[in-house]
């Protein structure tokens, strides 16, 4: 653990905080794009330690949160079919659809399995040639390459009973959408390091220049976050707006060429709906024409889905940085991790869940929320 400990060193953190304090002269609003960064910030109390002038706005980078309700409802319908083995990463199982979640599908007899890699789902397809195996392929540029690789392998190995329910999203169009939305307060971005480790940084200079915002590629450990903030604040104070890599141990400017080649082969860019935000042009991937046979939506022709978002849920505004989670009227009352109205409350990386889990000091838990277990 020495390696990770080094990135949580309190003494080094104090020095970075001192540097930020001595640099900042006026209020700045930074957005951390990734839900993993939000989680680190709240879990370690970084936002409490920053000077008041530095405000962190939580971005839309939680893959679970932004997966549209329609796709989740499609997943639920496919997963409930008796011929299907539905495979997913664990944190999608509790995300509510319009009227149920994957756990509930499983409790009614659906064969829903948690896997740790899409290739595990492919193995299941090989082991069960008489069943249809569907993998729920969601996420940003980080999870897209292995999912693309799995489809590539399925075709190469001639595995006909595997398909992908795909809802991949891309970060740069989301940044564009945030910067052009009315009422945007974001003045700089902490870009998601793992996204850049795949895609590189080529897409960012044009964004930074056009919107005059610093974009600092940032990692996920506490010191990574503080270093990202430090560099961002320095740029803001100097009136600069360049792309800076504060995560060089993982990110090269060209990214991962092999992963990018795989993405280009298997996927094509498409407009994509983001839960709580709406459709963002060219913000997603779908399977390209050559791999369309492996698209679960085509294979199962899931149609007639009518979605129903809870009226009280303001997760879209949270995802765009317009409000903080606790400023939503439903936060902690109608909406808790056990009774989530939106995915931002249910996902482990969702901003609402992070606030609920870590930031309720001064509130009293209800009896059900903290009761003894035999």
């Amino acid at each position, binding site marked *: 653990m020495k390696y990770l400990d080094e990135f949580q060193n309190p003494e080094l953190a104090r020095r970075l905080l001192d540097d930020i304090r001595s640099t900042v002269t006026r209020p700045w609003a930074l957005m951390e794009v990734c839900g993993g960064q939000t989680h680190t910030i709240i879990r370690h109390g970084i936002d*409490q*330690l920053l000077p008041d002038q530095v405000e962190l706005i939580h971005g839309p980078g939680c893959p679970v949160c932004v997966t549209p309700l329609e796709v989740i409802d499609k997943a639920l319908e496919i997963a409930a079919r008796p011929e299907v083995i539905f495979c997913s*990463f664990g944190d999608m199982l509790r995300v509510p659809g319009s009227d149920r979640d994957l756990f509930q599908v*499983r409790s009614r007899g659906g064969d829903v399995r948690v896997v740790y890699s899409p290739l595990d789902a492919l193995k299941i397809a090989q082991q069960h040639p008489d069943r249809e195996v569907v993998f729920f392929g969601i996420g940003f540029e980080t999870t897209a390459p292995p999912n693309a690789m799995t489809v590539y392998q399925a075709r190469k190995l001639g595995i006909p009973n595997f398909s992908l329910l795909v809802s991949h999203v891309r970060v740069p169009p989301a940044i564009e959408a945030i910067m052009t939305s009315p009422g945007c307060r974001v003045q700089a971005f902490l870009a998601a390091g*793992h996204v850049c480790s795949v895609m590189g940084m080529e897409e960012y200079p044009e964004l930074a220049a056009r919107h005059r915002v610093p974009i600092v590629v940032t990692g996920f450990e506490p010191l990574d976050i503080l270093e990202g903030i430090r560099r961002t604040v320095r740029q803001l104070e100097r009136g600069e707006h360049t792309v800076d890599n504060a995560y060089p141990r993982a990110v090269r400017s060209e990214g991962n060429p092999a992963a990018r080649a795989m993405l280009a082969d298997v996927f094509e860019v498409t407009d994509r709906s983001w839960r709580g935000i709406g459709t963002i042009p060219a913000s997603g991937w779908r399977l390209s024409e050559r791999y369309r046979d492996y698209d679960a939506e085509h294979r199962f022709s899931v149609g007639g889905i009518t979605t129903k978002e809870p009226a009280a849920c303001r997760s879209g505004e949270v995802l765009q940085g317009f409000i903080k989670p606790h400023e939503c009227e439903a936060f902690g009352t*109608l909406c808790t991790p*056990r009774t989530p109205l939106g995915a931002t409350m249910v996902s*482990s990386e969702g901003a609402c869940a992070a606030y609920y889990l870590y930031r309720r000091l001064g509130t009293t838990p209800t009896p059900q929320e903290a*009761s003894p*277990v035999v």
Partner: protein
Amino acid sequence: MPTVDISGWTCPTPLRDQPRVVMGHGGGGALSAELVQQIFAPAFGGEILAQLGDSAAVSLGGVRLAFSTDSYVVRPLFFPGGCIGDLAVNGTVNDLAMSGAQAAYLSCGFILEEGVEMPVVAGVADAMGAAARAAGVEVATGDTKVVEAGHGDGVYLNTAGIGLIPAGVDLRPQRVTPGDVVIVSGDIGLHGVAIMSVREGLEFGVEIESDCAALGGLVETMLAVTPDLHVLRDPTRGGLAAALCEIATASCTGIVIQERAIPVPPAVANACAILGLDPMYVANEGKLVAFVPREHADAVLDAMRAHPLGAGAAIIGEAVATHPGMVVASTPLGGTRVVDLPLGEQLPRIC
């Protein structure tokens, strides 16, 4: 099928949204608690059950007994550091030990799946026998049932146990008072990560073994220093976080823990970092959390460290008068965060 009137239940209640049992109802978190509180406790009634301890403290003919039962459905049956057999013995022994009792007698119920190989059953039974002898407890009665192939995971076990509570020992959350020192007996998270690594075929660079062990001897050692321990809890399902949350709620006391003081083995920390899990929520099977009056804390800690099962014991925090019912962690960087009861099972994250 009986009908249950849920109209009077207060909101939010997940049972309204959970018309069927989901895995989280067995995860040792909030869903488990609600199942017990909203279905089992009202159905059974009874003041003793309402205390909802790891074991029940009962009195028979003037003798104070601890009484407990637990069921074991672990998969795979054999895992690094143990198997379902020693888990079933140690689990119930530990539930009794958390009342301060040395386990005396156990019962054992086998539910076997048709087709399971006989050497597997023998291996489980052998492990149970060895664990019972090591813990100084006798398996005094038992039962066997067989279910049809496909209706079980090979072997399910249930154990119940009784033991004597020594005079002067009164362990319950209500005795926790601000100023009590919180001690954990050693490295956390080993059992949960060991099970996960074999169940899911994950490799973390080093083999992680379960900490499965009987804690009766360690508790005896602690009580020899002072019978005035306030509460003990073995942080099994739901991990250290759930144990602390339960104590905070039941005692109406706040708890502050120093996150950096919690002993987390590097292999567990790495595995959790990869999977996006928090070691505080990962299950243990051979650890305990003790709330000890401050004046006895150093002596108890020394005694624990002199015992093989408490060699890694550490003070991790204290009970406080502020924020009653809530557990708050001081982060290594100097921030604070609330530690909440887990909902159900922890779920590995997507990326």
